């Protein structure tokens, strides 16, 4: 291979799409390293603190697309303090200096200020696509900058961000000359937008294929928008309710009738049953349906709709669908690959919504199922064993029993055997989340069988350090481990310290790890950042005599090339 000219090697590398493959080939020899670094267009940084932006951009000067992730996953559930970090500005500033040809930026769980967005909008003349997922720190003013200055913008995709509402005018900032939009998602915005500006924008962007509206958009607006965009493939419907004085139903029916290309539907925030019938005509072409923000949809209406959705591959619903609704899904949706069932009753008044029966029905009716997120009130070992047998192709299996330490209600035993069956049967399992009553045994199974596992989430599980050690010693592909409220302490933490350099990160909160344990880990492994988050107001005694015996409330460990970060707030200590 080294006798081939560089262009040939580069062309061969073009066929490698995954970052891991490209990372691997670059370690073969110096020649390959050089060819690869100059030809890499898409760069993925899984932890913004693992490497400095300057270093990334020096290595990959041809970078066109950058993905950066910030806060640990548990930040989604309020476990990471607000000012912990993850600022996007250094990345955008450095890219502005070093890679002005940047076309796409994807950020997840990062803090993005309006200032950052303004810089982004002005610094990259070829900028085409901005995707922000679970970010915060910006307002509609920042969006106005993007709309105003990004000529040729194709994609603005805002997924589940916290965006401050500074008014409805940002959408009007897209100039009349902007006709390039292919994808626009502002579903997470809480405020109103200028609907006439939106309608005009949609009308002039003939290539628009994905449009996800926010809750403030009424059915009347939706109808006008659909009339101007009959070629949409993905649609987020907005509130899907109307002033019942208007007879919007017939207009809606007509509008959807003309939209032959819709394959992906979401939204429906306030959907009234009679409006739901208007979409029956497109149900049979749908591959993705997200009803998880629609608590107003009753299960019988849901079942009527689902019966039409025989091509469905991805379904997200609320647990109000019940076991009965899931049985209907199992009958109708034979192509189903991904199912997510979210809790509708987060405040836990205990009305049983879905149980193990619903999951078993799905597993027997939908043999192609490979990705599951399931919030339920109870689960049995027998059910999990059946599911494991029916669906051996799971790559993602996340089960959340709402009472965190609930045993199998029939046998009163822990759920070790059930999860054990899952990891044994599903040889391609990459992501697993556990819940229910679990002993160390489940971790023995995971360590033994889950050889392809990359991400494991543990809460309120295990009995002793042995549990965590089974996982660290067994799962050779483990990249991310996050643990809360489990009895794992210093002995487990320090058992296999070299493991952490093979992983992206380890999170432990409300466990038994002590300050002394964290210090010992940091001392042994200089290429890890061992961060401890201390939010408590310590009593005077504790401050005067900080003891290595004190338990650490939250610890985040990650491999890094940069050493301790310089933007850590005062409640984060790096040992």
């Amino acid at each position, binding site marked *: 291979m080294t006798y081939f000219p560089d262009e040939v090697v580069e062309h061969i590398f073009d066929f490698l799409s995954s970052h891991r493959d490209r990372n691997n080939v670059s370690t073969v020899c110096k020649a390959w390293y050089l060819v690869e670094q100059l030809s890499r267009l898409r760069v993925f940084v899984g932890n913004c603190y693992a490497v400095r932006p300057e270093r990334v951009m020096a290595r990959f000067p041809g970078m066109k697309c950058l993905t950066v992730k910030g806060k640990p996953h548990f930040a989604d*559930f*309020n*476990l990471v303090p607000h000012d912990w970090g993850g600022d996007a500005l250094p990345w955008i500033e450095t890219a502005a200096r070093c890679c002005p040809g940047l076309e796409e930026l994807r950020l997840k769980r990062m803090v993005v200020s309006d200032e950052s967005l303004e810089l982004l909008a002005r610094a990259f003349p070829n900028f085409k696509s901005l995707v922000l997922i679970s970010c915060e720190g910006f307002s509609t003013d920042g969006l106005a900058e993007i709309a105003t200055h990004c000529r040729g913008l194709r994609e603005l995709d805002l997924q589940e961000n916290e965006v401050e509402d500074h008014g409805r005018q940002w959408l009007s900032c897209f100039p009349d000359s902007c006709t390039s939009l292919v994808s626009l998602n502002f579903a997470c915005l809480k405020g109103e937008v200028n609907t006439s500006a939106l309608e005009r924008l949609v009308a002039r962007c003939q290539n628009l294929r994905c449009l996800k509206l926010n809750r403030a958009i009424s059915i009347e607006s939706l109808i006008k928008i659909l009339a101007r965009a009959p070629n949409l493939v993905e649609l987020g419907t907005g509130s899907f309710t109307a002033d019942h004085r208007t007879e919007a139903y017939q207009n809606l029916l007509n509008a959807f009738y003309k939209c032959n290309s819709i394959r992906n539907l979401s939204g429906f925030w306030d959907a009234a049953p009679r409006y739901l019938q208007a979409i029956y005509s497109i149900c049979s072409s749908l591959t993705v349906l997200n009803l998880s923000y629609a608590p107003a949809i009753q299960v019988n209406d849901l079942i009527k709709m689902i019966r039409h959705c025989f091509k469905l591959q991805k379904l997200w619903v609320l647990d109000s669908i019940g076991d009965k609704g899931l049985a209907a899904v199992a009958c109708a949706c034979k192509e189903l690959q991904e199912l997510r069932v979210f*809790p509708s009753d987060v405040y836990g008044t205990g009305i049983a919504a879905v149980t193990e029966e619903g999951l078993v029905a799905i597993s027997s009716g939908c043999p192609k199922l490979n990705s599951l997120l399931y919030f339920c009130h109870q689960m049995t070992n027998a059910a999990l064993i059946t599911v494991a047998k029916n669906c051996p192709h799971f790559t993602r299996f996340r089960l959340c029993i709402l009472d965190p330490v609930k045993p199998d209600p029939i046998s009163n035993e822990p759920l070790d055997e059930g999860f054990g069956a899952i990891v044994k049967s599903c040889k391609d399992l990459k992501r697993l989340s556990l819940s229910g009553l679990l002993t160390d045994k489940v971790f023995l199974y995971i360590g033994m069988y889950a050889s392809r596992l990359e991400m494991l989430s543990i809460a*309120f599980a295990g009995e002793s350090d042995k549990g965590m050690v089974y996982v660290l010693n067994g799962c050779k592909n483990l990249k991310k481990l996050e643990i809360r409220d489990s009895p794992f302490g210093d002995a487990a933490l320090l058992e296999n310290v070299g493991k952490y350099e093979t992983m992206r990160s380890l999170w432990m909160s409300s466990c038994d790890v002590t300050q002394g344990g964290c210090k010992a880990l940091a001392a042994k492994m200089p290429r890890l950042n061992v961060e401890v988050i201390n*939010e408590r*107001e310590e*009593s005077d005694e504790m401050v005067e005599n900080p003891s290595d015996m004190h*338990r650490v409330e939250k610890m985040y460990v990650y491999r890094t090339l940069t050493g301790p970060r310089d933007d850590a707030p005062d409640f984060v200590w790096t040992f």
Partner: protein
Amino acid sequence: MELELGLSLPSSDMMMEKRIKTNFCKKRSFDEVLDEKTVTLPLFLQREEDGHGNSDSELNYGGGRVIVGWPPVKLPRRRTNCVKVNMEGIAIGRKVDLSLHDSYQALFRTLYMMFPKKHEDLTYAHVRRTEEEDGGCDYKVTYEDEDGDWMLVGDVPWEAFIMSAKRLRIIN
């Protein structure tokens, strides 16, 4: 075994909280947590709230459990949480969605807008000044919790409040 519920200071019960957590992990029954004869459990353990009205504490609240960050769903999915609001002397009540507010301050602002005081011209600026000068609201807001008891709004951490509040009542 006797339990006394008292408003004890957090710091003195730091170790108790840790024991509760340890035992919660190891033993699954709440009854087994305490093996001492008489124990004073803090009614709640409160840490410093950040500006958003979120406090990062584990609470043992009446008989139920409030666990931070559980179930593991993102903030936008926490469901709308509408409660009725009545003001003393006003026949018609309103409804307020608690999930759209992230702090007591935000809630009070909404309530002021919904129930402006009759004899005053209530603008937002006036509301702000009132809050700063009086250090609180002009009128008392109470709520009915899950046990049917009426409590003063503002005493417990925001997250616990929105989970237990069933109705609000404003008293002049």
